[in-house]
């Protein structure tokens, strides 16, 4: 009898030890997932995590990591409206930020809204291109409703494969001059992506592309001003000739026999 009681006590002790071990292992897993940011929902009003969580994997490429990365490739796909699209990335005159987003992920919603805001400024004169999975894996209608009007959106599963994108959101920052990937990874906040691009620019890695992009922006602004000046000059000449807005000559039918330039007059 005593032997049975002793055996039962030993078994119970072993079981208690096993349960304690399992609980500890479970806690370790939860803590690791929490540190990785899994389950964080930036749109949730009451998040479980109150302490700051680091960006999980967003990182600049080093000389060592660049050797292991696939080369930057141009993005080939379709627009949400069905246009055939090729976006030059690998030898482009400016750096390119590829934002791999999907219509379903909650964190992506924050980026769709951010990219649609007017006056979005990308460091280093970079070009923003949103890349979703192709129409076979994504809803074209959903992407069309999310796509900002002024930002290029390409649906291309091939690009996801080429850049080995593990999930969305995911960012790849490419220096067009060298065709190299400057940094990549995921981040819950836009600020972290901007910081990556800014640091890359500060290193001088993107100097040529940045200078080119700055020149392009200045040229576009100058030409906008030229247009306004030309329009003002035309208005001035017309008004000095007595032709004001609404003047009948502006609406005359040149085929009418009474028109001053009609050949029969």
């Amino acid at each position: 009898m005593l032997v049975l009681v002793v055996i039962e006590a030993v078994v119970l002790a072993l079981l208690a030890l096993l349960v304690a071990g399992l609980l500890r292992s479970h806690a370790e897993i939860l803590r690791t997932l929490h540190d990785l940011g899994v389950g964080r929902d930036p749109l949730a009003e009451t998040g479980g995590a109150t302490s700051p969580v680091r960006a999980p994997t967003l990182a600049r490429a080093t000389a060592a990591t660049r050797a292991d990365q696939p080369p930057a490739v141009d993005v080939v796909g379709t627009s949400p409206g069905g246009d055939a699209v090729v976006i030059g990335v690998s030898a482009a005159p400016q750096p390119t930020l590829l934002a791999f987003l999907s219509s379903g992920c909650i964190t992506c919603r924050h980026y769709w809204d951010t990219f649609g805001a007017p006056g979005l400024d990308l460091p280093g004169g970079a070009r923003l291109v949103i890349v979703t999975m192709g129409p076979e894996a994504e809803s074209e209608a959903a992407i069309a409703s999310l796509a900002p009007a002024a930002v290029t959106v390409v649906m291309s599963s091939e690009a996801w494969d080429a850049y080995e994108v593990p999930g969305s959101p995911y960012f790849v920052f490419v220096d067009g001059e060298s065709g190299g990937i400057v940094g990549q990874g995921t981040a819950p906040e836009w600020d972290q992506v901007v910081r990556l691009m800014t640091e890359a620019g500060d290193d001088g890695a993107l100097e040529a592309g940045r200078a080119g992009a700055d020149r392009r922006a200045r040229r576009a602004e100058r030409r906008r001003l030229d247009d306004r000046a030309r329009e003002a000059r035309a208005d001035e000449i017309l008004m000095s000739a007595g032709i004001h807005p609404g003047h009948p000559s502006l609406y005359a039918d040149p085929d009418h026999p009474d028109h001053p330039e009609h050949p029969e007059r």
Partner: protein
Amino acid sequence: MPDLHGHQVRVTLPAGWDGRITVRRDGSAEALRTAGGPVVFTARPQPVVHIANFALPEERADFGNGAVELMGDRDVLVVLFEYEPEAVETPMFAARGLPRSLTAADFDPAMLRRGIAGHTGHQSFFRQSGRAFCLYVVLGSTTRRARLIPLVNAVLETVQITPRTPG
């Protein structure tokens, strides 16, 4: 090198170039009429091919307005604008085949849809595979045209236009 293809047009682009084949989204027919007169022609949106060695902006017109303003002196823009199938029978499209070997003599700033100081342009109208097209090319610099025209010709060499299929 990436291939741009759609609407029975295929172009191979050099690395780093942008390309789009677009059909205007509104889809509505555009009635063209003489001043105050009857409708003489009804145009339906047709494919437009844009190819550039710079980043094409999303907001741009068929003949590149919105994009040409951004061009630098090393930039080129190539537009293939398709017309209505009926247009192929008109004298304007009597020339056969896409020009593939442009020379400096083919360019003139007067050919620009939007005149920008320093730019020069080319326009030609042709028929190919029973389809009517305008080839419109803008060079970002007249003085650098000897360097820019070979870039354009290299792309034109790869253009394949096949007959339209229904649908």
